[in-house]
């Protein structure tokens, strides 16, 4: 039941977006953060065969079934997280990057992230003045159950603060910022550990960037109805 094949025709020199019918699962093994259960991952494989040629391309990814919700608590002002309907007590660490010379090997990521899991952490927050972390980082966060809070590249360097005063309106090229943000989302969005996108470090990005990020990252109406509670993002 977890195998689907669809026939389609693609005109020459054409790029198209294709949505497959939803694939049904009964009681899938859920992905849980570190300390709450197993980090169950399914292998999703997609193959396209072309008549007269054979297999033309393939793609695979380890996918975790999980539902992550977070809201700002009106009483405490703090952010609350739920995973698969269960409240999570966040034990998090601030992450900038693994190495200042960007020697970011798989082995290094595995050791660093396993170390944080062994410390009983369940979240890493990637600071806005650091990196949009790499797929290998997210892969090991998927494996070891570290939720990831990923910030975009906005800090006190880009809000008119500091001495000398920084540019008050973010990076000079807002279109480039959004292009990089959209591409980063596409690169990382399938990882089970990815919990939250944040505009920047301890502040709100310039108005146009913030509006564009909020618009692009809002939940699709279909999934809003599935969640059944518009307060949950």
């Amino acid at each position: 039941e977890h195998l689907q094949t669809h026939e389609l025709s693609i005109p020459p020199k054409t790029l198209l977006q294709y949505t497959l019918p939803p694939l049904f699962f009964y009681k899938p093994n859920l992905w849980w953060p570190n300390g709450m259960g197993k980090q169950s991952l399914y292998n999703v494989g997609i193959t396209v065969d072309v008549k007269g040629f054979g297999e033309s391309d393939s793609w695979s990814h380890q996918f975790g079934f999980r539902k992550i919700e977070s809201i700002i608590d009106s009483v405490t002002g703090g952010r609350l997280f739920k995973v698969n309907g269960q409240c999570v007590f966040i034990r998090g660490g601030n992450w900038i990057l693994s190495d200042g010379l960007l020697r970011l090997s798989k082995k290094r990521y595995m050791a660093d992230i396993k170390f944080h899991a062994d410390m009983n952490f369940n979240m890493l927050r990637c600071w806005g003045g650091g990196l949009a972390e790499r797929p290998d980082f997210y892969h090991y966060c998927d494996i070891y159950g570290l939720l990831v809070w990923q910030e975009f590249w906005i800090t006190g360097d880009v809000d008119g603060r500091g001495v000398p005063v920084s540019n008050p309106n973010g990076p000079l090229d807002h279109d480039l910022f959004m292009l990089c943000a959209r591409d980063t989302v596409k690169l990382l969005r399938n990882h089970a550990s990815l919990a939250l996108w944040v505009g920047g470090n301890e502040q709100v990005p310039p108005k146009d960037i913030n509006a564009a990020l909020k618009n692009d990252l809002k939940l699709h109406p279909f999934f809003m109805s599935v969640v059944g509670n518009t307060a949950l993002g």
Partner: protein
Amino acid sequence: MVEMGKRVLDSGWLAARSTEVAATGVQLTTTHPPSGPSAPWMEAAVPGTVLGTLTKNKLVPDPFYGLNNEAILDIADSGREYYTFWFFTTFECAMKGNQHVNLNFRAINYSAEVYLNGHKEILPKGMFRRHSLDVTDILLPDGKNLLAVLVYPPDHPGSIPPEGGQGGDHEIGKDVATQYVEGWDWMTPIRDRNTGIWDEVSISITGPVKISDPHLVSSFFDGFKRAYLHTTLELENKSSWLAQCSLTLQVTTELEGNISLV
């Protein structure tokens, strides 16, 4: 038929400071390729940074020991040209009819010129973006392909005040790049501002139809008893004829060892 899929180009790279290389990108990738790691060329760290390459070759002391960082020239004092570097490698890829090849850079800081077998492409600015070039018509069917990449540092590397401080003079924030590199309360300034090919380089070989950026989302009902996997993807037909395709989605879970449940 050449095996399809992705091949990572992470070995055999050379690097040289751009001001010490007389040849042009076209010459480097046609008539005058570097012969090996002899000056001004050196073994390069790819993926990695220019400072990583210099450290690897012991041309600068390791900046993370003691006060070694003080002995390394900062880009504010040296100028951007000092940390503008050539990276060079070769690879073989003899694809057959109806196959297509893309050259992929998962991230470069900050912009670059790419030369492949004498052909030039510009990789525009931005530290956090992927670049993918269709090089099918540029590849040599037999033998080595020559690839040279001229990597430029961020446009606004900024300068570091004598007293240091949060983010130096904040100039780096004008670019879409990582900002800790001008130094922070927990970090010394990174002298090259992390200039380099800092993430994976690969070639991907496909047939006429290519898959891009699949998006997987799950939805749940009845207290997680029922779940649906929603899949959207982009398909590009690079051929000049109508492609009749079979698209297959398969989800498996590993039970134990190499035994999978379908």
